[in-house]
């Protein structure tokens, strides 16, 4: 029973017993167990990553009315493993004039920026990984390392397409970081803590119902941060061939690709944690830690599916439109929403919970309506300036 509730502690105690039997000092045994825990987590994540390749290809094929990989194994499940073997035996090329050290470091950093996000992911009530009290900021800090890896890859490849791709991608990531961080502060206001675990535990009502607008803006900013379509300006295969990772081949390209997929899944997970209660589901999470992990992964997969749905449905937006959309629409709306939420939170501090939730929800809906109306007014005025006043249809 204990194993079902808190498998990590049971396993750690068991290992500690074994190591103590070997005459190892407790300090070293603790360090070794911590390293083993990290190793197991990363190994499982990489295994999941292999499956994500298959899931992504299967889902995109359904969106595009195709069948997808179906030759190798049942439902094409062996296809990703065949892909990995191909990537591993492919020639590993380095372009002439490339900066070798940075060129080789970039894919590692790109993967690392995703994996370190899992350090603060609360998987179950008893498996919090690291319960960092500034977890929300930590997520943004990990994103900064991702931006760094892209600039590194783009510059060190000695290729103008990759450099242009890296510039565009970095510009998008730097600007969309701002609404994303602002939207992460809204669950922080509700929960009274920046810790990701505390935010999960405080969600008796899913924060999606308190701040639907925040959830939507967070998803949009996260998709831009991931560099996925419609914000995939850094790759833009029709104009930049493949963007920042153009010169990479073999497993180094595989690292970028796998990092992108795992990143999307991870942000599906954080979306679920910040706005959909994470591992919580009507008390089911208390039954077993494994059930809690399954709930979190189910929610994360729904988030990942929505990200894929958007990616394979929408067209790419032009870079200036993308940046204007962020700076002239998303950022002001995010700041207004943050101020409104903080104000409403203080106003409704003593109100009963139905009033609190209702007031928050209504303020979000009103703000979304006002933002859309303002955007519509300005875009109509802009159009009239360009085209001259004309009625589209007789009224």
């Amino acid at each position, binding site marked *: 029973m204990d194993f079902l509730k808190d498998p990590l502690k049971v396993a750690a105690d068991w290992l500690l017993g074994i190591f103590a039997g070997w005459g190892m000092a407790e*300090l070293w045994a603790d*360090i070794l167990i911590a390293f083993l825990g990290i190793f197991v987590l990363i190994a499982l994540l990489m295994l999941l990553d292999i499956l994500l390749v298959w899931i992504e290809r299967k889902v995109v094929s359904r969106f595009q009315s195709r069948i997808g990989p179906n030759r190798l194994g049942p439902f094409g499940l062996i296809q990703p493993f065949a892909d990995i073997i191909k990537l591993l035996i492919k020639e590993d090329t380095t372009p002439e004039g490339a*900066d070798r050290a*940075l060129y080789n470091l970039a894919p590692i950093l790109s993967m690392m920026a995703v994996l370190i996000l899992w350090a603060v992911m609360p998987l179950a009530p008893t498996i919090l990984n690291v319960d*960092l*009290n*500034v977890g929300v*900021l*930590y997520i*943004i*800090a990990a*994103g*900064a*390392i991702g*931006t*760094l890896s892209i*600039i*590194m890859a783009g*510059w060190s490849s000695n290729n103008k397409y990759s*450099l242009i791709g890296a*510039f565009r991608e*970095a510009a998008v990531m*730097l600007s969309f*970081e701002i609404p994303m961080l602002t939207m992460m502060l809204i669950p922080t206001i509700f929960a009274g803590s*920046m810790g990701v675990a505390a935010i999960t535990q405080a969600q008796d009502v899913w924060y999606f119902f308190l701040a639907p607008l925040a959830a939507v803006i967070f998803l949009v900013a996260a998709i831009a941060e991931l560099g996925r379509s419609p914000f995939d300006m850094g790759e833009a295969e029709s104009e930049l061939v493949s963007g920042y990772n153009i010169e990479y081949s073999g497993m180094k390209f595989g690292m970028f690709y796998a990092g992108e997929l795992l990143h999307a899944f991870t942000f599906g997970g954080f979306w679920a944690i910040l706005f959909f209660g994470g591992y919580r589901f009507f008390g089911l999470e208390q039954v077993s830690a494994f059930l809690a992990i399954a709930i979190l992964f189910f929610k994360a997969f729904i988030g990942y599916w929505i990200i894929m749905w958007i990616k394979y449905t929408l067209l790419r937006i032009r870079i200036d439109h993308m940046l204007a959309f962020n700076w002239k629409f998303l950022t002001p709306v995010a700041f207004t929403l943050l101020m409104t939420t903080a104000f409403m939170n203080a106003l409704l501090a003593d109100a009963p919970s139905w009033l609190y939730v209702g007031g928050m929800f209504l303020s979000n809906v009103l703000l979304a309506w006002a933002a859309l109306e303002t955007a519509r007014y300005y875009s109509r005025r802009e159009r009239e300036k360009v085209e001259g006043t004309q009625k589209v249809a007789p009224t």
Partner: protein
Amino acid sequence: MTVDQVIFLAVALLTLFAALRVVTTGNIVHAAFWLIAALFGVAVIFALLNASFLAVVQVVVYIGAIAMLFIFAVMLTRKEMRDRGPQLNPNWRFGALLAAVAFGGLLLIVNGWSGVTKTASAVPSDFDAVSALGNALVSPDAYVLPFEVASVLLVAALIGAVYVAFNQK
């Protein structure tokens, strides 16, 4: 030596090495990346001092924004991104003197301070550094005035930047 001390020494040495490479490397983009390594080392030292908020902010602000701005500026202003110009200008003697005087002065101040040899008291397990910092920043007894002045300065800088960049038709 405790584990903390070993980690501190290793990180401090790496930080110093990276900082040295910033000024000795011939390639200016490499200098920017070494600067990032040095700033990251400082973040780790903040983390070792239980200042998790400062550590994370160090990464977000310095690596995520300022260092990235350096790299952008270098990449957008240089015609040849691998140029190797002279690393010293005629004023290097004066600069070295200034650096030596500043270092000596800091050493003197730190030596005269009694806090150097004292052992820090252990942080209580329920101590919440983030809320303590947040309360200090908005409490009138603590740092609300410097905080507000800094905010006004930043807003002024922001408005100034917009004004300078604004394209008047």
